[in-house]
């Protein structure tokens, strides 16, 4: 050691471990708490529902308890061929969504990557985004009748414009330096698009799809309630005619469950496909 520096003996710091608190900004909670709390909210919900049904605030026929709804759900599947309705609804969502993606993914990427493509499509896409899809139902009914084509068209119109915009935004957010890295390594425009822009934007594109798939489910019910012979929404409208509130509620339950399942599947796909991301450490 030189004269200019003086060393001091090290002192040990006291162990002050923070204690666990329930309300703490942005800090993580144990996984077991998360599970317990997640289950608790549902237990509470069913309890309140059951109590409301027992209390008689509404006639039992309008507000059946959870037990009755579950029974109705069971008989729907076993005796009334409800599985067919569910499958038709799922098919409608999947098929129309696949069509929407087939258009929106390439178009959105090109709009996000090239200002000229954006300048051409953007005014058009933005205008359509502000038109509520259900306002097209009368027109679609006249053009396509009450069949599948009408429903697929509504679902398609319902998600495509937002999907394009989201994908274009995510593509625009690809860091310029990543693109310039490829360019200075000798990448052609097509190579940069294929090997940098697309893989860099892809994780967020899948997230955009997950969000818009939820919207697609909303439009499915609207489409099936307005005019349909089959599907979950059609079953609910049939039940309404016969005052089968328990079946209507069973329908709502199934739609909710299907939404949850699809969301979970896309989340799992995201995790599997993009393990290299920081958030999946």
């Amino acid at each position: 050691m030189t004269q200019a520096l003086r060393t001091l003996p090290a002192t040990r710091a006291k162990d002050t471990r923070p204690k666990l608190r329930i309300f703490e900004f942005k800090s993580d909670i144990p996984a077991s708490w998360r599970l317990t709390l997640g289950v608790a909210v549902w237990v509470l919900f069913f309890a309140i529902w059951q109590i409301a049904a027992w209390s008689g605030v509404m006639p039992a026929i309008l507000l059946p308890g959870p037990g009755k709804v579950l029974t109705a759900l069971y008989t729907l599947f076993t005796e009334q061929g409800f599985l067919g309705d569910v499958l038709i609804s799922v098919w409608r969502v999947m098929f129309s969504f696949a069509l929407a993606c087939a258009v929106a993914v390439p178009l959105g990427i090109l709009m996000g990557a090239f200002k000229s493509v954006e300048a051409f499509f953007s005014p058009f896409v933005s205008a359509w985004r502000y038109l509520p899809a259900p306002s097209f139902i009368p027109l679609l009914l006249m053009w396509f009748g009450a069949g599948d084509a009408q429903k697929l068209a509504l679902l398609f119109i319902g998600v495509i414009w937002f999907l394009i915009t989201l994908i274009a935004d995510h593509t625009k957010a690809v860091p310029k330096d990543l693109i310039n890295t490829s360019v200075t390594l000798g990448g052609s425009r097509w190579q940069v698009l294929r090997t940098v822009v697309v893989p860099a934007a892809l994780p967020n594109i899948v997230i955009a799809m997950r969000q818009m798939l939820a919207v697609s489910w909303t439009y499915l019910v609207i489409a099936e309630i307005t005019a349909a012979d089959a599907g979950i929404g059609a079953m609910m409208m049939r039940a309404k005619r016969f005052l089968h509130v328990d079946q209507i509620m069973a329908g709502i339950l199934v739609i909710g469950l299907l939404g949850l399942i699809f969301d979970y599947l896309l989340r799992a796909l995201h995790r599997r496909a993009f393990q290299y991301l920081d958030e999946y450490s």
Partner: protein
Amino acid sequence: MQSSTILSVQNVCKTFPTRGGGVEALRDVSFSVARNELCVLLGPSGCGKSTLLNIVAGLHTPTSGTLSLEGRPIHGPARERGMVFQSYTSFPWLTVLENVEYGMKLNGIPKAERRERALHYIDLVHLTKFRDAYPKTLSGGMKQRVAIARTLANAPEILLMDEPYGALDAETRWHMQEMLLDIMRTTQTTILLVTHDIQEAIFLADRIVFLSAHPGRLKTILELDFKKGKEIRSKEDLVELEGYPECEREIMHLMRNEAKQEEDA
């Protein structure tokens, strides 16, 4: 000296068009870089260093002036002028090995040769143990090493670096600077490096091109004679060298004068 010139920058001006008439970033800048030299562009923040480097890379076009590499005029980006950026640019979806192979793949180098060259450069930046790792598991310094290996493996004629160590902590920065000198010694490389860190400039440079601010003009070119013929491997070697304190003081004066003129203006 003249015969070994690899990069020549002549009378380069750059004005960015803006709504209020335009920002003049560079005015009449001329200098050249010799083969196998490490030339540093130094100057206060905002003096146009990045702009100048981007023009050399071909990412920006100069408003006027000419640039040439090996006598060929520079138009647009090309493989021969590889660039390492300040931000981390390892592609997160590729492993270290795939990242280093990336440029060669773009340029159609056959697979076997690609692999061999990538492994060589990964070894050169001491990342052999991490060749199959994804960038998310690497530290900032390691990511920059991937970027350097990737650019060198692509066999550029000149390596451009824009504050490559600006985002690293001090100790990592030393290691990276020492490693860069090591690479200079063992490979035939020409480097044009931008920094605003005076010590980094003195440590790395054979020559310093000093820019003044607003607009960026060539202030002076400093030959670091006190380092000539000396073996410098570590920061300590540099600090102990005769002539170092004077050199640092002189450059600090240059920087300060720039800052003062800024305030007076």
